[in-house]
């Protein structure tokens, strides 16, 4: 199968702090991450001719970010699909580079959700807005965690999935986090009570937040950010690090429908597009960077992406299959420690691209030997109601 190698990730940076104590702004996190990612690539500000921004740092990003960075880009893309924005941005950057509209694309993310004490998971979601869908939903007091919990409940009902099976995802992710010094520091800075590898029993005995999801099945709320530089093959050849090619992409959304199946996400639409375009199969993936807002998110997305049939995810993940040191059992999951145990500043999609790139460069703290192919899948919005899915397939030379 021939693969088009027409855009590559050439520079990355993950902002190290998860608790800036209110002393750094999201914009500053974006700019510092951008400069470090450009340095990582061996490029400079003046090389950037395309910017992609979800607008999370405020302002009207399409008007204000180029000025803030001091750039004059020819392509300005402000797609915002929540946490999956960065997979969409990577797909669009590749498309724009292929079309000859750009040579060097810059994606940035910055958030101080922790410093701002935003109770993302159990916060308001009250006050009706003027969007008709929200005008129907707001009165019920559904927390974000309850939204995902309703997917988990239905998954258990339909397929017999258990809390112990869901806990496998938390356990594998925490194991990877304990090997990542930045993740360990994050858990220390965010004052996790018990920073160690966990067991299935730890997870299922942790406090119930919204049935059937326990505390250790929920992501953290941190500060953080990062940047990704994507370049044309001509530029990539002269960069400092080996290129990590974007081989395929897929995009989709899903929303509540009469008679719809809540256990199947938009990934069932975006995943096949991406794998088809890349000419590879889920079974060939060495790395699966899957948006782990909650345990159930990963389980549903692994099924939808085609790692196992729908409904069999619970049995498929059993026995520590997702650990980085089990390469013969399929892909390693979220080897940076994920949103569950490394960082989640609200929109985690960029970190999926960052760790997938580290793995394909051989730079991960839980390195899978000779990793060649990775999938990064972002889920934006809320899995149990309306959400967006962005799938990116990455490969090295």
């Amino acid at each position, binding site marked *: 199968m021939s693969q088009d190698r027409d855009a590559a990730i050439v520079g990355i940076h993950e902002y190290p702090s998860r608790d800036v104590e209110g002393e750094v702004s999201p914009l500053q996190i974006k700019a510092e991450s951008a400069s470090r990612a450009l340095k990582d690539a061996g490029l400079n500000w003046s090389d950037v001719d395309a910017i992609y921004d979800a607008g999370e740092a405020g302002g009207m990003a399409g008007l204000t970010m180029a000025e803030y960075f001091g750039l004059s880009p020819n392509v300005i893309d402000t797609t915002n699909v929540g946490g999956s924005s960065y997979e969409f941005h990577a797909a669009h950057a590749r498309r724009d580079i292929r079309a000859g509209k750009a040579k060097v694309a810059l994606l940035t993310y910055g958030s101080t959700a922790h410093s701002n004490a935003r109770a993302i998971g159990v916060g308001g979601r009250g006050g009706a807005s003027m969007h008709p869908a929200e005008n*129907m939903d707001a009165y019920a007091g559904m927390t974000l965690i309850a939204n995902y919990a309703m997917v988990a409940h239905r998954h258990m009902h339909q397929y017999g999935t258990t809390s112990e099976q869901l806990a496998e995802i938390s356990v594998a992710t925490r194991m990877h986090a304990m090997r990542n010094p930045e993740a360990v520091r994050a858990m220390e800075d965010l004052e996790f009570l018990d920073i160690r590898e966990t067991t299935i029993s730890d997870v299922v005995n942790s*406090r119930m937040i919204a049935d059937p999801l326990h505390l250790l099945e929920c992501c953290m709320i941190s500060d953080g950010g990062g940047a990704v530089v994507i370049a044309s093959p001509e530029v990539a050849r002269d960069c400092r690090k080996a290129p990590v090619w974007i081989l395929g992409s897929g995009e989709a959304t899903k929303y509540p429908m009469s008679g719809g199946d809540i256990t199947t996400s938009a990934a069932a639409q975006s995943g096949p597009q991406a794998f088809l375009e890349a000419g590879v199969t889920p079974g060939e993936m060495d790395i699966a960077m899957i948006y782990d807002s909650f345990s159930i998110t990963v389980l549903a997305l692994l099924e939808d992406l085609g790692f196992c049939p729908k409904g069999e995810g619970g049995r498929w993940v059993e026995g520590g299959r997702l650990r980085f040191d089990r390469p013969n059992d399929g892909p390693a999951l979220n080897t940076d420690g994920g949103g569950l145990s490394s960082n989640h500043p609200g929109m985690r999609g960029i970190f999926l691209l960052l760790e997938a790139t580290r793995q394909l460069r051989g730079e991960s703290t839980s390195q899978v030997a000779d990793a060649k192919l990775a999938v990064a899948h972002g889920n934006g919005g809320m899995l149990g109601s309306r959400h967006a899915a962005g799938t990116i397939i990455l490969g090295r030379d």
Partner: protein
Amino acid sequence: MNEPKRPLPRADEFDTQAFWAGTKEKEFRYQQCTQCETVVFYARRHCTGCLDGELEWKVASGRATVYTYSVVRQSYHPFFRNQVPYAVAWVDLEEGPRILSNIVGVADPLTDVSIGMPLQIEWEEHDDLCIPLFKPA
């Protein structure tokens, strides 16, 4: 001191105003296309199934089932923090619409709610509208 109140919808939102107006009469209104028979919910002005269809308002029976649910144990919302534990559910009306609501009228939501459970609508009265909640049938 005013007690924190349940967040209420805006009665003047363009698409859903007719639905909320119906709740004053304790009617659960939904739309169906006279041409292609698509059930449209939440309310809109256009048919999502065909281009020329007229949407007709219908009134649901109020009979429903639990599609899925969660019991919220922790909320920071000023009203809902005092309601925990409470059941949030996606509820399937017999006629097709699926709505996010609460299951009420159970002694203990932790043990008395289940997926597939038959429900009946239970209107919670407010000044300008009623809120459709559901109780065991």
